[in-house]
């Protein structure tokens, strides 16, 4: 589904990602950990194709297409979908209309979809105008439900969300990744076969892991990936030891030199 090879990315001339290699298979969900400023969001933004994120080396292959320099809309139409953390307000564009645009002409029951994320009463409101943290998340999910992406990019699904909304967000993300509702009567094998949506999720708290079945995880540190393991295990480890371990792991023999390097 997604293959990232030796990806180097600079933001305003400053190198942020320094050689990322990552492959995510169809139906697989990958969890990205790492301290603030390590480059996680930069990776997501680069995958989506935002301006200001300059790929200086390496490539991004999605569904067999080299999208390293493709415009955003082309990536979106190929099937990359992203939940924005702080999306802009677009005045005069009702959320319902936005959802319709996301579907690109696909037959949809927007009202029914909106009900699932308790958003049916907000469809007439301009997209993101005065939305709370939870409302933004639900609106983003609703748009993604319409978009039906093959790869879901999600930056901190739990940020700014209360516990009740977290459950809703969690279940919805799971449904998006599974391609079917949770309660659906399907065998595990059927679920696995049906599951073709991949996910790349950034989390600090790990709350999302209670809802989605994440196969692999890795820690991003100072623009590099390290320490691949089961996401739960990484989370436990970070909870106990912080990110110090990563430093040691990444540094190898040259431990002393790295600590002097800026951590941003």
């Amino acid at each position, binding site marked *: 589904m997604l293959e990232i090879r030796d990806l180097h990315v600079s933001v305003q001339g400053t190198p942020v990602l320094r050689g990322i290699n990552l492959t995510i298979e169809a139906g697989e969900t990958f969890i990205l950990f790492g301290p603030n400023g390590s480059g996680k969001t930069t990776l997501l933004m680069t995958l989506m194709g935002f301006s200001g994120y300059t790929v200086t080396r390496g490539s991004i292959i999605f569904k067999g297409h080299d999208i390293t320099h493709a*415009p955003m809309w082309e990536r979106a139409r190929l099937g990359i979908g992203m939940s924005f953390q702080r999306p802009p307000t677009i005045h005069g564009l009702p959320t319902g209309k936005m959802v319709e645009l996301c579907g690109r002409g696909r037959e949809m029951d927007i009202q029914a979809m909106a009900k699932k994320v308790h958003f049916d009463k907000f469809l007439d409101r301009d997209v993101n105008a005065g939305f709370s943290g939870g409302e933004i998340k639900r609106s983003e999910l609703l748009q993604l439900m319409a978009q039906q992406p093959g790869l879901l990019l999600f930056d901190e699904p739990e940020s700014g969300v209360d516990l009740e909304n977290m459950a809703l967000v969690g279940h919805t993300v799971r449904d998006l990744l599974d391609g079917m509702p949770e309660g659906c009567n399907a065998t595990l094998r059927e679920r696995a076969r049906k599951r073709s949506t991949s996910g790349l999720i950034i989390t600090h708290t790990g709350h999302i892991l209670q809802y989605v079945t994440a196969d692999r995880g890795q820690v991003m540190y100072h623009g590099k990936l390290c320490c691949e393991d089961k996401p739960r295990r990484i989370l436990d480890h970070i909870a106990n030891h912080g990110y110090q371990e990563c430093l040691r792991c990444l540094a190898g023999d040259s431990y002393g030199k790295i600590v002097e390097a800026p951590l941003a």
Partner: protein
Amino acid sequence: MSIPDLSRFQFSGGENAAPIADLSSLPEEDKRHLVLAGIDVADTNVSGAFMQLNHADVHCDTRREGLELMDIRAALKKYDGLPRHYWNLLSPDKDDVTRLAHEHCNGGYFVRVKKGVKLTEPVQSCMFIKHSGAGQAVHNIVIVEEGAELHMLGGCSTSHGARDAAHLGITEYYVEKGGKLTFTMIHNWGSSTTVLPRSAGTVAAGGQFQNNYILLNPVGSLQMYPSMNLDGEGAVARFNSVIVAPTGSYVDSGNRINLNAPHTRGEIISRTLTTGGTIINRGFIGANATPVKGHLECKGLIIGNGRMHAIPELDSCRDGVELSHEAAVGKIAQEEIEYLMARGLDEDEAASTIVRGFLNVDIMGLPAPLQRAMQEQIDTLNAGGGM
């Protein structure tokens, strides 16, 4: 504000043009222009209708009890010169426009809704210029008596063949105690028309005035700065404008609200877009009493090589007033474009979606068919590659 030379226009002739009993009998070409100015030529769902062609009152139809609608010249005769309402809020000496309009008054309407009468359907008025070089100098008087309600739809248009015409329009609005007036004006002038409205109004205690203004089509030069005085306690005024200026259009437009009594509120919101023309976007809220509230919002978008000059003003010397303004001149935000592109819209689709939202006429609460007609025009504007 300099006023163009108006001496070349003809302010008389053709005053006795044949009446048009049925607007749907107008030539197709003219009808098309009128529809773009928001005129319902089928003339259904209206409480009354008035049409002026060049200098003649050609159509006047009143369908509701409590509604008075007639040519201003007839009203002046009937009511002994309307001493309490004619040139009461504006002075003929204000400028060249008022002087000429005073001297040559060649039409306009007098509309009055009687005390307590609430008209659910709008009254439509239409100012149409069909002759090149014609100078329309109209004087309108709108009176909403105590507790009455009126929605006035004013469409103004020039026919396809009329070159270099002028429209001078004096309008005086009187909203009495607890009255409610919504005045929607839609302009569809030609690219060589000079348009110079001069309007003023007064709103008494508890009265409400809402003004909607839409200009989506080219105009030669347009200059207006309607002024509302909120003279009674609790009076409210709102101005909403959506203005587009393509190459060749010169638009100098603003709204003024004077909060003269306690608990009055004023709001001015304008969305302006230049695709090559000039827009001077003025706004003024003055507070002369407390407590009062006023908010002014002028947002301008430049696409192409137009000019946008926003001049928001707030003025008060009273302790305790609450006045605010937001002004912005800029391009479409890259952040918004990218948000839509991340959902699969290409750059052009994203830009036109944002512009459509920006030129939103939903807040005006227009009758459904008119709302649709305006939205269709905004969509064509987009599709025309003007963006």
